[in-house]
């Protein structure tokens, strides 16, 4: 069971590397959703290297693991280099994303070691995660369930059914992290269906809620670690405020960045300078 703990600076260095590797995947696989994958790089890095998730690359279904669901599956291409680096699968696979015979598709499925559920069709993670959390509690298994959604994903009605359910059953082993990159496909989320005040919505649903800068590795580790471990008698939400397309100025500035594809030439230019 692995829980690597690194310093905030080391986590940022790793994040920078994974961001570059994500862009290189996108250079070879234009079908991947790069902007929504870039906003969550620090989050995924902290979960897997910041001592937050118990996980076992040698046995991805190890019963001792914490359960991790990436409900915003399309926005987790940046998890591929992390899983490869942790040893879930060989790094050479990263060059094959979206090619014939690869298990790494544009939208990840649990044929990929490290993924628990079918993701990318949005709005399923909170409910499935709630079922897992309920099962673990009933069985007296002291393990956590962590679910990552996007913010636009919260437009799906099924998530609110799950939020009510998790509060009703006081699922204190369930942590939801919203990668709040503030954009969905066609516009800024607030111009489509606004979610503000999001933390207050969770609190009104009897969840604990806290916000964090989702690009600050030190803050992410501190907040996620503290919130997951807190003795609050119910589910907890962390709103990770991020920038969609983080690290690529043209994407960061583009309200339609969800659907943008970068050319290999653009990526070559960026990768040298990506932060």
């Amino acid at each position, binding site marked *: 069971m692995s829980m690597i703990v690194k310093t905030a600076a080391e986590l940022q260095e790793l994040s920078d590397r994974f961001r570059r590797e994500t862009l290189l995947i996108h250079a070879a696989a234009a079908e991947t959703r790069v902007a929504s994958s870039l906003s969550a790089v620090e989050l995924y890095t902290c979960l897997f290297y910041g001592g937050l998730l118990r996980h076992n690359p040698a046995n991805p279904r190890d019963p001792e693991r914490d359960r991790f669901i990436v409900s915003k599956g399309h926005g987790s291409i940046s998890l591929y280099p992390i899983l490869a680096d942790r040893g879930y699968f060989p790094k050479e696979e990263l060059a094959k994303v979206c090619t014939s015979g690869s298990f790494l598709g544009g939208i990840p499925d649990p044929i990929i070691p490290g993924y628990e*559920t*079918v993701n990318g069709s949005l709005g399923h993670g909170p409910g499935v995660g709630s*079922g897992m959390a309920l099962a673990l509690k009933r069985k007296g298994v002291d393990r956590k369930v962590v679910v990552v959604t996007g913010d636009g994903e919260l437009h799906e009605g099924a998530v609110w059914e799950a939020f009510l*359910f998790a509060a009703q059953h006081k699922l204190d082993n369930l942590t939801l992290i919203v990668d709040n990159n503030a954009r969905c496909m066609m516009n800024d989320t607030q111009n489509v269906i606004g979610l503000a005040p999001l933390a207050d919505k969770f609190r009104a649903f009897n969840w604990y809620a806290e916000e964090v800068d989702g690009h600050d590795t030190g803050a992410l580790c501190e907040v996620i670690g503290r919130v997951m471990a807190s003795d609050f008698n119910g589910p907890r939400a962390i709103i990770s405020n991020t920038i969609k397309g983080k690290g690529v100025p043209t994407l960061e500035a583009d309200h339609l960045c969800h659907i943008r594809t970068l050319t290999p030439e653009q990526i070559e230019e960026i990768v040298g300078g990506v932060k």
Partner: protein
Amino acid sequence: MSLPKSRMRDSFLRAVKDRMEKEEDIFFLTADFGSPVLDDLQQSFPERFVNVGISEQNLVNVSTGLSLEGYRVIAYAIAPFITMRCLEQIRINLAILSQIRPLNVTLVGVGAGYSYAVSGPTHQALEDIALMRALPNMGVWSPADSETAGLMAHQALDTQGVRYVRMDGHPLPELEPTPTAEDLKRGFRLAGVPGAMVAVISTGYMSHLALAVYEELEAGGVPVRTVDLMNLASPDIEALTAELSACRAILTMEEGFIGRGGMDGLLTTQLAPYLPKAKWAHAGLTPHYRFEIGPREELLAANGLAPTALADRVRDLING
């Protein structure tokens, strides 16, 4: 004297309760749909019973999460809602996921066909067979009586996989013969005259109507083989072909829309090619929502589903 009647759901729930007493890895969920027998189950196992409220999408997703952690899950609700309100949850988290990870989830829908006749189209289950059949990996089980439903509870708990069990909303008499384990395995139960040139294949409540069709034809000197089809996704087609090889006329009967991929679709594509000498007629509901208020028999008759009209369709096949 009318035959004693019993509810499919009662025998199913009693069987589940018996198993829950001995086996601790069975979890029961309902979307706020209850019955006296369910109250008993709830009181007996408060730690393994949850009413998720009126939220079928979450019902399916929570079932998935529980099953991923090793529970065998029974999820219980009204038939049209547990199949159609949450179709995408069923597709993603049961049909697709079960192909990759082991799951045991049984969706139980009560209110097959026109069971809830006077409630109108919202509460009638008319498209559920076709929709569930469209999903790979999803079993579609359709009991015709409570004996069968009770056996299906055990079959569900004893078999890895995901499936939908379509139950009638009303008490019905037991059909003869009593279903056997072999019937459940093959997915159909035979009655009537072996080797007959006429067969009626029906499912659920329609298997009771098929009995009346059988009696009418028999009285007119036409021997009939009857097939109560319980498995609407993957019945043993080879065994069914062998049983019906002498048939020249086959009537199918289902309480669902016709020509939309229901039982007629199954039999047309899977069975008919192996019975090239048989002529077929498919009886079911005209694809049309009915707002007329009336008892089930009236709604069925409006679709041509009355014993004499159905017997006439068989005679037309024979004489045609």
